[in-house]
């Protein structure tokens, strides 16, 4: 079994058997999508739901936002033959692992993911969100099966640094 670990801001799409996508979640969300007919599946891992209005963000920061993470995942699945109307989702993460930091980030992330999937008309299957514990998610994209296990007891997961921004917008044509 080949394992493809992802961290925040990343995603993987797979259309072959014997491949597992894995990730470790605290307040982040992982959405697992699958098209059963096309046998194409993928998972992302995003940190926050949406950018706030006037905040200046780098491209790398923005990759951590759910709305972009979801679009990248859906587009890549469609490139591999999936059809949006056939996709179903599983939803994990959104724990409030660190208390006393104001708005409950995990709760907000989970609410965003549910709202996004509802707006896009993607059916939601198994969901395990909220609480205070970190989670490990293992997803078999070809089969559409996921396993979610708890990691430690209310252990905050230190988010890794965002990956370096992919060079974008540097094509000076305008």
């Amino acid at each position, binding site marked *: 079994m080949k394992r493809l670990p992802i961290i925040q801001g990343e995603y993987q799409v797979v259309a072959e058997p014997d491949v597992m996508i894995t990730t470790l979640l605290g307040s982040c969300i992982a959405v697992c999508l699958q098209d059963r007919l096309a046998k194409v599946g993928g998972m992302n891992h995003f940190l926050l739901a*949406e*950018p706030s*209005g*006037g*905040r*200046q*963000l780098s*491209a790398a920061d*923005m*990759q951590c*936002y759910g*709305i*972009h993470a*979801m*679009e*990248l995942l*859906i*587009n890549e699945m*469609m490139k591999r033959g999936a059809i*949006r109307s056939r996709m179903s989702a599983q939803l994990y993460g959104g724990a409030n692992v660190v208390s006393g930091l104001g708005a409950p980030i995990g709760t907000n992330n989970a609410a965003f993911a549910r709202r*996004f999937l509802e*707006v*896009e008309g993607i059916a939601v299957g198994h969901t395990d969100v909220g609480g205070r514990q970190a989670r490990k998610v293992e997803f078999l994209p070809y089969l559409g099966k996921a396993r979610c296990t708890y990691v430690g007891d209310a252990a905050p997961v230190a988010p890794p640094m965002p990956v370096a921004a*992919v*060079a*974008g*917008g540097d*094509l000076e*044509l*305008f």
Partner: protein
Amino acid sequence: MPAASAIKVMVVDDQASMRAMIRRALQDLGFKDVRDKAGPVEALSAVRSDRVHLIISDYNMPDMDGLQFLEQVRKDPVIGKTVFIMLTGSADKEIVQKAAALGVNNYVVKPFAPAALKEKIERVFGELT
């Protein structure tokens, strides 16, 4: 300096959440007349019957991609000169070059912050009030 509130905009993206996010960003920038469609076919029909000043379109759409959409707009004798800004993925330099050849006015690389969208619009229309 043009007033953002006087510029009519059509947003085209197959993802409803992305359309909603762009709408909100434009409204925060002062745009009042923002319409949106899920695909180029519906958008072409809408802007032919009720013209807009600016089209902001995704590239990656299932039925007709952003380049084909741009080509259709530029070929149209009525709406052919509409300002067209394309939203592209981060690794799509080839697409940007093709879009430039087809007459795109500017492009925004996804993911983008609202400030980046404002900057690209202002490069075409001038500083917005």
